[in-house]
């Protein structure tokens, strides 16, 4: 077990190194650096050039790229992502601010997805080919094909603008600070509704179909027949014997999708004016804010690798047959 964890950690570090090198070079090699963008407004050519050079020196852009990369890694090791080129604030502070809005929506939507799709998946599997199974799967399939930003636009248009039911800009209404605590919570909750829905509905079809499919495969196994044969109730057979055994692929699916959910969605966050990671990334790209872009790339990659790793480890917990020894 320990050797497996060590092996995984080493390969993970190698991959992480590769990712950081690639993104560093993609970002640096292409034209249009932040100093250029910030000086493009200065009319006087000589002044513009001087400020440009000073800015490049300040940001360390005048050094060769490998040196810049080494500096970046050196700071990273002590947990320092540097300061933003755009507003000079600490990158960690900027990300820290954007983390909660994205994370809260992601977790909320994730919980909703599991809570709704698990019973649907189990029930459809039990009544395979029945009316419920067919109508729900068709309905969810249609939903699955609705892109989340398309749904977002329609929801904003009808629920937000035409019928004026729910807010759709940002996390808080104007005058949030004057509200009572209860009022603030209610306001916050209202702002969460539309964006959380947009993150959730598409996954419903995917997850419920996935759960149904796995359960169907498990139900055919001999030990299920044994469980039935020894006279166990259908409830116990399905929930205890079948469902728990269909959890392994579900964990790997969660492992595969969670990091992408955590990354937020550029379009949705931009559309709902949501101050999350996706919007921060989009703005950083526009501003050529190298430290912020690098930090976000790095964190996303870390999340992907980390969560896949945790998912692989949990297999062992769910399924004792899996051994990590070679």
């Amino acid at each position: 077990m320990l050797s497996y964890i060590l092996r995984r950690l080493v390969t993970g570090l190698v991959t992480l190194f590769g990712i950081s090198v690639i993104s560093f070079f993609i970002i640096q090699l292409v034209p249009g650096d932040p100093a250029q963008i910030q000086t493009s407004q200065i009319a006087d050519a000589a002044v513009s050039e001087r400020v440009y050079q000073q800015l490049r020196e300040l940001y360390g852009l005048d050094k060769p790229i490998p040196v810049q990369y080494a500096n970046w890694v050196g700071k990273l090791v002590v947990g320092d992502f540097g300061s933003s080129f755009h507003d000079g604030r600490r990158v960690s502070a900027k990300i820290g601010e954007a983390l909660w809005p994205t994370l809260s929506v992601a977790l909320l939507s994730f919980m909703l997805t599991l809570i709704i799709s698990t019973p649907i998946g189990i029930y459809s599997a039990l009544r395979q080919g029945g009316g419920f199974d067919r109508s729900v799967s068709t309905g969810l399939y249609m939903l699955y094909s609705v892109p989340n930003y398309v749904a977002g636009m329609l929801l904003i248009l009808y629920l937000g603008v035409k019928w004026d039911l729910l807010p759709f800009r940002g996390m808080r209404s104007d005058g949030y600070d004057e509200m009572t605590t209860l009022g603030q919570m209610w306001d916050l909750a209202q702002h969460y509704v539309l964006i959380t829905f947009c993150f959730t509905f598409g996954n419903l079809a995917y997850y419920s179909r996935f759960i149904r499919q796995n359960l169907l495969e498990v139900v055919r196994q001999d030990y299920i027949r044994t469980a039935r044969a020894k006279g166990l109730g259908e409830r116990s057979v399905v929930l205890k014997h079948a469902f728990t055994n269909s959890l392994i692929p579900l964990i790997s699916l969660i492992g595969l999708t969670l990091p992408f959910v955590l990354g937020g969605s550029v379009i949705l966050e931009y559309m709902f004016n949501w101050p999350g990671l996706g919007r921060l990334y989009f703005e950083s790209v526009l501003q050529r804010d190298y430290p912020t872009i690098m930090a976000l790339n790095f964190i996303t990659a870390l999340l992907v690798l980390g969560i896949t790793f945790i998912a692989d480890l949990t297999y062992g917990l769910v399924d004792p047959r899996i051994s990590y020894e070679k």
Partner: protein
Amino acid sequence: MARSYWHITWRRFRGHRLGMVGLCVVAVLFLVAFLSPILANEQPILCRFDGGFYYPAVVDLVHQVPGTSLIIQKQRPYRLATFDFKREFDPERGDWALWTPVRYGPREIAAEPLAGPSGRHWLGTDQSGRDVLSRMVHGTVVSMKVGFLSMGIAVILGLVFGCIAGYAGGIADLVISRFIEVVQCFPAFFLILAVLAWFPPSIENVMIVIGLTRWVGIARFARGEILRIRETDYALAARSLGVRPAQLVLRHLLPNALAPVLVSVTFGIAVSILIEAGLSWLGFGVQPPDASWGTILRSGYENLFTAGHMIPPACVAIFLAVLSFNLVGDTLRDVIDPRLQAERA
């Protein structure tokens, strides 16, 4: 032999009603895209003007094929940017015209801005007074082009690298597989955005970038298939007959690996269409005077309170395109996978 395999696949495919519906919608979208110059154009299909016959919209149709502008050109007055046929049109002189179904070009400023749907403009007009229906029709071209061409790029790259990794193995496999893993660690949209930020936004760049990020999935599929097929008896037979590696891969392994790749390509087209519309919405794709479903959606978003009428048509179009490609892909998967077939029987 290969032909009969695809023949069987097609026969099975026809049995799936939803898949056929999806295929029909895809065909319609294709037709709309191809015929867009004679469906929505500010110049007529055929007209009599000042004693002569002209067919400007037909020339536009032909011009969709690259290179044809060297062979055929619009006749004199229609070629000029300043020539406005609608203003010069004079029935008294004996002028008549066979108009396209939508009489407005995608960039033509035809009416007052942000007008709601009316008899003249079925889907209303946008913030510059351009006909939304005409822009929707021409937006189809962008979506179809991006969908197919970007996946074309992805397929070529994916098959080449997938075959090399799967067949050669060893160092090549190790390097390519690692690289695929690294690329897959980035959410595709982030990667695309990061790359696109450096290039002037245009539909060509969008296509290339989508293609460059989508090939890894195909490469992984192809690699897996080649690995599997390489061990089959007929591959062994071919090898023992002395078939050279390149020929073995191209003639014997690849054709049998194509089916699962085709499935992932179909889904890939839906994703590409989605990404293109999203990028255009963000301002990184098709640029404003040109029409795309994404830019129309963006115009609607920017004028939410005054002109919501632009949003539903673009939403429906994107939804239909994605749904139909998904349906075709799903059906194809069911049809191709013999294991599923056995279960159903």
